[in-house]
């Protein structure tokens, strides 16, 4: 029993076993959504209950956990979830990407490339990539079963016809292992290429919708596009105001009420590491 009187990582062992089975199935069929019996968690739907349940099920006493929210370790949500696991599992936590074994994330992939020893757990609001185009669940299940994805291409076609370009800036649909259409969760489209052939295991948990899916290590992940309108990752054309990076994804901050803005790295740990690098080199 931990400090708070809960089983290790909050969930009972039978639940963890059930979720692990779902995770195994998900890994066996990359990109395919597996239903699971989501439990009541001590925070509401929409706050990461799916991600937390996946993390809780795979967590072991030796794991080192990092939690980020929109790339930052220090937002309220990231702090809450990290503290939650400290209390119910007593595991070590970190803000340094390279030191973590499990990284739970809301809507970003860390800039630093992950390794085979790491697992990335995504929080997913809506696991069904076709939801806005086809609200009927029974129908989307058939479409996935038949790999009948013309509908999504129609959506992209419509964007180009109306706007001249594909308008999805986040949650940009991908084909996993050239078989299943998957929602990568609302990460910026900029992050999509990182998913392709990633060395780490990627797990996706949707608590409200009760679905788990996965991308095993070294799996092809391709963002949908047209031959004459190829996918291009987009970031603000600036350098980070703090560390000077011109390749990381930037947050735009309003600094005053006179229209002043600054662009800084969304990934706080990455920015920190870059800031410390010249000091380390100098030492």
């Amino acid at each position: 029993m931990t400090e708070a009187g809960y089983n290790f990582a909050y969930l009972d062992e039978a639940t963890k076993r059930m979720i692990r089975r779902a995770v195994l199935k998900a890994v066996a069929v990359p990109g395919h959504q597996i239903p699971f019996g989501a439990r009541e968690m001590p925070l509401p739907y929409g706050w990461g209950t799916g991600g937390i349940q996946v993390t809780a099920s795979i967590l072991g006493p030796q794991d080192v956990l990092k939690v980020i929210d929109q790339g930052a370790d220090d937002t309220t949500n990231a702090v809450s979830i990290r503290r939650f696991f400290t209390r119910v599992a007593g595991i070590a936590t970190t803000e340094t990407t390279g030191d973590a074994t499990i990284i739970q994330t809301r809507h970003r992939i860390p800039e630093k490339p992950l390794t085979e020893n790491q697992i990335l757990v995504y929080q997913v609001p809506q696991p069904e990539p076709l939801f806005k185009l086809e609200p009927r669940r029974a129908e989307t299940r058939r479409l996935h079963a038949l790999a009948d994805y013309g509908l999504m291409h129609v959506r992209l076609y419509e964007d180009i016809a109306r706007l001249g370009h594909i308008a999805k800036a986040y949650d940009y649909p991908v084909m996993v292992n050239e078989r299943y259409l998957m929602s990568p969760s609302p990460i910026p489209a900029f992050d999509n290429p990182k998913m392709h052939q990633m060395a780490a295991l990627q797990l996706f948990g949707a608590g409200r919708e009760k679905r788990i899916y996965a991308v095993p290590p070294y799996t092809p992940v391709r963002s949908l596009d047209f031959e004459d309108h190829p996918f291009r990752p987009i970031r603000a054309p600036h350098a980070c105001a703090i560390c000077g990076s011109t390749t990381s994804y930037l947050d735009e901050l309003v600094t005053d009420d006179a229209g002043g803005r600054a662009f800084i790295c969304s990934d706080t740990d990455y920015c920190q590491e870059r800031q410390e690098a010249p000091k380390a080199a100098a030492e």
Partner: protein
Amino acid sequence: MLLEAKKLHLKFGAIAALDDVALDVTAGEVVAIVGESGSGKTTLLRVLAGQMAPDAGAVHYLGRDVLGMTEAEHRRLIRSDWGFVHQNPRDGLRMGVSAGGNVGERLMALGARHYGNIRDEAQAWLQRVEIDSARIDDLPRHFSGGMQQRLQIARTLVTRPKLVFMDEPTGGLDVSVQARLLDLIRALVRELGLSVLIVTHDIAAARLLADRILVMRRGQVVEQGLTDRVLDDPQHPYTQLLVSSVLAA
């Protein structure tokens, strides 16, 4: 032999919707099924298209058992070899997707990945069905009924299906609009060598479009044969009644 159906039976409670119906369609043929309401013609079309299961009987497409197909096989067939034109265009179109998107969808579902080419093909088809190609980005909900129906036809024919099922394609349209649509269907059938199975209560439309005609009444095929022969020299009492009832303009 493209489509062959034998000994079809279907009852809705005590009512025989299909009573020992047989039918066949060869490549390049247009077959009309005519009858009044309740004749079973629409039920027959649905059974042939695999949308409804009969109580008994068999349907074969190019030798393949249509009724015994898995859903996956059936859907693949519907998307590639077959086309279905619904009476109400709203049932056959995506109302929230542009005209171009509607026409391009089947192409994209079959793997087309070049936006420019898809758009060009959609534009060509809109022209073919006499829709101003400047409306390619407009939504069908802003089209007239006749235009929606023509768009549905374009959407269905874009993948050159071998067999097209049409369920009262001119139902509900104004007369002048019907004439235009029938002429369009006629021209496309000739041009593309389509095989068509068309259900209609409009005998004049059947005469214009069909090589062969089946007359249905209360679930039975009472007469069938060469269209002009059945309409000009009807043998069955019901056919004689039907033909004599049609008002000449």
